[in-house]
């Protein structure tokens, strides 16, 4: 069965610190997609990144970076020089190729203090 585990329930950092959000996934399929979504206090989840199982290249987008390691079934998300606006709940998610269902982790709530 598919599963997404985000072991960190809450993380609190001070502004300008770097922070890494962990995501471990499980699936029997060989092809799949991984996602990260951000849910700010307004409630609406916003898409951040999608990665397919064939592409293990790390990605950087501004202060955000993602480390996909198939060998450890992990897809971790790092925010560099965090800002108060990064405070949100972050969800890691998994969807198998050919499927409609997206499986979400429990989420990690990030607090960034000024």
């Amino acid at each position, binding site marked *: 069965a598919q599963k997404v585990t985000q072991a960190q329930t809450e993380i609190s950092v001070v502004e300008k610190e770097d922070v890494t959000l962990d995501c471990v996934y499980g699936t029997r399929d060989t092809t799949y997609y991984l996602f990260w979504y951000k849910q700010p206090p*307004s409630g*609406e989840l916003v898409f951040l990144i999608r990665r*397919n199982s064939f592409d293990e290249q790390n990605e950087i987008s501004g202060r955000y970076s993602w480390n996909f390691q198939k060998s450890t079934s992990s897809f971790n998300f790092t925010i560099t020089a965090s800002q108060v606006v990064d405070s949100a709940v972050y969800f890691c998610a998994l969807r198998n*190729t050919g499927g*409609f269902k997206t499986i979400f*982790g429990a*989420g990690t709530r990030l607090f960034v203090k000024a």
Partner: protein
Amino acid sequence: DVKVTQSSRYLVKRTGEKVFLECVQDMDHENMFWYRQDPGLGLRLIYFSYDVKMKEKGDIPEGYSVSREKKERFSLILESASTNQTSMYLCASSRPLAGAASSSNEKLFFGSGTQLSVL
């Protein structure tokens, strides 16, 4: 600006009431989804629809039904609300990848959610 709109941000209902949660998207998406979000459990899929009048059960369909009479609208129905259905309900939509048979790799667009309290 593309949008998924949920009719209510907050709802308070009584046990046994019939409850309708409405969701409308303006992106002409084929796929629509209803999730519920509970602390420590993340988002769990209740139902989804990949076309008008089509519906499929998700992981926790018990106690819920859905209706998709028009492409842009997907309604979640609680036939007889119970206290364990108190939750945040999130609607989402997505489109299939052009030329592909499935929508497996398309991202989800979410509404702002409806916080339902059943007393």
